[in-house]
């Protein structure tokens, strides 16, 4: 859990600071924000799939034993 809270802290800090990331995100009518949102959704979905895959692998191993 600590691992995740540090990550969250880092994310929230970078959101406040004026950074080159902000420059990109505000340009081209903010289209990059949409791209980032889709990337976030897909990344989390993919991560969930990986977890599911691992759980099934574990079940399979338990079944074989």
């Amino acid at each position, binding site marked *: 859990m600590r691992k995740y809270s540090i990550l969250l802290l880092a994310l929230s800090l970078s959101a406040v600071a004026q950074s080159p990331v902000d420059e990109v995100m505000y340009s081209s009518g903010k*289209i*990059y924000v*949409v*791209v980032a949102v*889709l*990337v976030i959704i*897909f*990344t989390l979905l*993919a991560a969930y*799939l*990986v977890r*599911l*895959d691992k759980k*099934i*692998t574990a*079940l*399979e191993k338990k*079944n074989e034993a």
Partner: protein
Amino acid sequence: MTVSYIMRKYWWKILAILFVTYGIIGGFLMPAPDNIGILGKTIRNLNFHVPMWFTMIILLFISLIYSLMYLASGDLKKDSMSSSMVKVAMLFGLMGLATGSFWARFTWGTWWIEDAKLNGAAIAMLIYTAYYILRNSIEDEIKRAKFSSVYNLFAFPIYIVLIIVYPRMAETSLHPASGDTVGFSTLDLDNNLRKVFYLSGLGWILMGVWLSTLKYRLTELKRKNEEI
């Protein structure tokens, strides 16, 4: 290097995630022919709508191979793989229909229109819906596997005819690469679409295969637990 070994490997799943992510980013941000008639920027839907159908076709083809393998060996695992592929293929088909319909609304001005490509795709979906009705109506495991495998052998050629051959033979169509229309490949003069589309398509196909194998592994686990 057996199938069940590769199925549990991660490298191709990572590739799937990377390619689809590339497709999402590239689909929005790459240069593309953004000014062709009614299409406008929706030409970028090519990277998302078309891979749904590619994935469906590939999954159904693999399903066909597994049906043949079942009929040759009598190994119920092959039938289980075959039906898992069809199930995920149907999901991709539904996503293809839904995205296509939405795209049509804002280019052709209607959610649905009587068109060889659209009606062909809709009937093709019904053919695999019948596959499920057939499967669920048979209690006996072996009988179910045999019936649905044989049905699958007939379903696939009809599916291909409905989704590709018949729309091409039609006199007119609104859908690209059907009837009297050209495909997007002729619009992509400087190959900008291809740079994203090929990898994006491959990524979605791999995602579909991944989902199907998960479905298969879950079904097999369930089957084994019921035996005990």
